[in-house]
């Protein structure tokens, strides 16, 4: 083997990661995007707090996987739903784990969405040019809460039923639209036979589809616009140049910074 420079460890790693990528690229051309995703540059000073977004994505994937398994055993019918929940929890092999992970994963998902949002707020990462991605995130938060609301009815126990009564009535107080929203949600005057299948369809088809699509857009924008440096970092990417004019390595940066932008030095 050829002798390697001291920095070759990274090159080795990169080469190993590239073997399957090359295979895919040769046959589909898809690999370019994956490669771009993996080897795009991020600021060197990124922080552990910036893993909250991918942590939220992981929680969503847990919900998706456990949700599919639950759908194999759950029966969205007022006469059978409760019994199927008892069976999943107490009889089906590892059913308790799948249902438990789905139940508690929902709370973890919501908490992580709030933490991720707080991080973006504190870093000022919603500012130009990332405004649209912030709005997509707000949409994801709203859809995620609606997922929680529709999923809460499905166990069809007393907690589920009465919480949904309260939740549906809260929607009913909306001016003008209220009665129509209530009618749509419970598909009738009271919560009944059709309500549970309606919530089920929203919970496992409509909302996850919408969330999945928005997550795709969210990630596309993250990759396109880049990750922000922590605002307190002295090396923050995009910071004002202290010394106007050519910088130490003089690659013409000065021409891009207008004189008026140099004072005040916001990051």
């Amino acid at each position, binding site marked *: 083997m050829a002798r390697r420079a001291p920095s070759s460890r990274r090159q080795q790693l990169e080469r190993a990661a590239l073997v399957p990528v090359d295979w895919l690229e040769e046959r589909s051309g898809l690999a370019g995007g994956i490669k771009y995703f993996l080897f795009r540059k991020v600021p060197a000073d990124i922080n552990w707090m910036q893993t909250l977004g991918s942590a939220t994505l992981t929680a969503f994937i847990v919900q998706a996987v456990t949700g599919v398994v639950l759908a194999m055993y759950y029966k969205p019918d007022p006469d059978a739903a409760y019994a199927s929940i008892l069976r999943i929890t107490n009889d089906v092999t590892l059913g*308790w784990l799948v249902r438990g992970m789905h139940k508690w994963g929902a709370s973890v998902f919501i908490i992580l969405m709030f933490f991720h949002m707080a991080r973006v707020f504190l870093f*000022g990462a919603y500012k130009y040019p990332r405004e649209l991605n912030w709005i997509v995130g707000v949409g994801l938060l709203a859809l995620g809460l609606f997922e929680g609301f529709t999923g809460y009815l499905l166990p069809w126990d007393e907690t589920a039923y009465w919480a949904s009564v309260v939740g549906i009535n809260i929607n009913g107080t909306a001016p003008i639209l209220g009665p129509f929203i209530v009618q749509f949600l419970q598909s009738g005057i009271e919560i009944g036979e059709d309500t549970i299948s309606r919530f089920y369809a929203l919970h496992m088809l409509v909302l996850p589809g919408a969330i999945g699509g928005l997550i795709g857009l969210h990630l596309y924008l993250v990759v396109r616009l880049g990750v922000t440096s922590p605002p307190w970092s002295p090396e923050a990417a995009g910071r004002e140049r202290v010394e106007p004019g050519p910088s130490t390595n003089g690659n013409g940066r000065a021409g891009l910074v207008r004189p008026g932008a140099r004072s005040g030095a916001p990051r």
Partner: protein
Amino acid sequence: MSTRLEQRRAQHQRYKEDVKEHGKPFFPGAMWHDTVMSLVVVCVIIALASIWYFTSGENPEDAGLLGPRYTEEADAGTTNFIPRPDWYFYFLFYLLRIFKWPDSVILGTVGIPTILLMLMVGLPFFDLRRERRLLRRPVAVVAAILVVLSMGVLTYKGATQEEALGGDATVVADWVDRNNLPASAREGATLFNETGCQQCHVYLGSGSANLGAPDLSDIGSLGGKTEDYFTRYVANPRTFGNNVMPVYGQANGGSLDDQQLGNLAKFLAASKGEG
């Protein structure tokens, strides 16, 4: 002088150059961090599921450290179950204790959530400064602290709210005594207590104030509220512009017949408050 937009564009251009020059590839460093964090998340979820399951029993009464596996099967006829949403809606739930039907309930149910949503969506458009350091964003920091504090307090209050139950027969005797109810109102009082009215209404300190429903202890002393008025109101609150309270009249798809409605109305009309 350059415009604000030009300054922002120049800043993003500098950002791209800095990252290109001094940044590091997402793989492996940053991706490793993401992977570790994701594993922590999965482990926490599994741990919560395990604690929940192994400390609880098959019986709905055998609640563990993280609550029961399930409560009893849903029953629309239950009168004594306290409705309560999942924890992340407690703040909204508690807002409805503050804003009462009919005057301000819309503020709590629709107004404040809509305002919050609009503030969140609009944030990048109100805050046009490029400054990202916290110490130089006092308004943003104060707003964040206030939002976190108020959400925390509302969630805590919603979680610890003590509720009085309906469906307790001894309560009815107490009402008759304290509110000087005539014999004709007793039938209605019992019905009120058994039908689940107290899931939303408070009567002489018993029941829960949900959805901004008013205290009914002295509803009969308010002007113009006759037996006939109460009969029609309870039969179909929609005709009075109330879209929150369920419809009770059988003619409108509810669960109470005319005689029951009449008894309830007698009870409400006789409720003039203590003393």
